């Protein structure tokens, strides 16, 4: 794991002059965790996208440093794993093919066939690895998103609605992932669920802008 830190400074977002949230500031480094909570429509997923470099803030910035070296916004995605309801896998590929294809596009030389197999086993999809994703249930698709997020051993794991569509075994798998990530890297959870929010030591409540 790299010595990573991320700092959000005065991040605000507006859509069509409507303010979603204002002046969100926090700082996280390895071993720390943050829960993003708030009512529906408060901008949790929007803040998640900004943290992952997928969306630009209206004001403010999110800066990443790895071992005290600033990271370019395009390189940030190499350090982040994201699970989100807005993320989809390719239905016309199998679960295994999705992971192989996406790791090749990422040009990730550290992802071996053995590691892909281990990741699929961890998320409970090994038996269904050669089935097309269009045949997966919503819970299985969510598990595949976890496999995708963890494949490149991210320093920052961002979970948006982490246990959506998951059964008890799936929830237990997510709790293990969160536990492991908290001890080795940065964990960020965006959720409405009070139980999930307790996984994290810090909390930002959108709508209140408090930390």
């Amino acid at each position, binding site marked *: 794991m790299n010595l990573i830190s991320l700092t959000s400074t005065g991040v605000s977002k507006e859509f069509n002059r409507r303010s979603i949230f204002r002046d969100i500031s926090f700082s996280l480094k390895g071993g720390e965790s943050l829960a993003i909570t708030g009512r529906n429509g408060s901008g949790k997923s929007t803040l998640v996208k900004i943290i992952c470099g*997928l*969306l*630009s803030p209206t004001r403010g910035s999110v800066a990443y440093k790895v071992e005290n070296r600033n990271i370019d916004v395009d390189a940030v995605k190499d350090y982040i794993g994201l699970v989100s309801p807005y993320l*989809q896998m*390719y239905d016309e*590929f199998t679960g295994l093919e999705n992971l192989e294809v*996406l790791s090749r*596009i990422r040009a990730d030389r550290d992802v071996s066939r053995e590691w892909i197999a281990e990741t699929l086993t961890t998320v409970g999809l090994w038996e269904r690895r050669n089935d097309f994703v269009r045949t997966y249930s919503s819970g299985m698709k969510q598990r595949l998103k976890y496999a*995708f997020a963890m494949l490149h051993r991210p320093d920052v794991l961002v979970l948006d609605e982490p246990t959506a569509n998951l059964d008890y075994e799936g929830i237990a798998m997510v709790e293990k992932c969160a536990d492991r990530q908290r001890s080795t890297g940065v964990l960020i959870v965006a959720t409405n669920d009070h139980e999930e929010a307790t996984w994290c030591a810090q909390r930002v409540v959108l709508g209140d802008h408090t930390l």
Partner: protein
Amino acid sequence: MSVTAIFALVRKDIHSELRTRYALNALVMFVVVAVATILFALRSDQPTSSVLAGLYWVVVFFTAMSGLSRTFVSEEERGTTMTLQLVATPSTVYFAKLIFNTALTFSLTIAVTALYMAVFSSTFVIQTMSTFLGTVILGSLGFASASTIIAAIVAKANTRATLYPVLSFPVLVVLLMTVMSATTKALDGEPFASALGDFQILIGYFLAMTAGSYLLFEYVWKE
């Protein structure tokens, strides 16, 4: 941006297209219907080379309009845009989609050429093959370079089906006029040197369009 990543994304698009036929079916059907319609309209008429050249590129243009936007539209419709944004830089995505669209357009022109030669065997006779090949290759590159950036723009719009040809035509009109001129020269048997001016325009168009698209693509791709 790495070449490995670019070609991995191109391979993904090819495999995906072969499995879903998302664009292929539309392209093939449009080509067949368009050529058949022209055949019925012309009947036993002997059109001039300039008319044939124009009709050839009309088929290519409208077939491209029905298919080339799908490289980005399919990612938006299936919700895989965010997935791609997480694994690839904007420049990787741009060049991969450009290569895929170029291959698709080139295959399309080959198919249209084969159909034209079969259906209009007495009139569509390529006298200067080198000019025709150069036109098809440079025309495909030009079509792909313009269509890729426009497809990326309209993929995020609501009325993408109508917006794509509306945005494309003014951008492609220079290309269309040039390829029709060069194709006419190929059909008339004019020497290769007579088409050099057209090739200069096509090369300049491709380079300018690609450079401009590369610089703008990041702002189009990211929200």
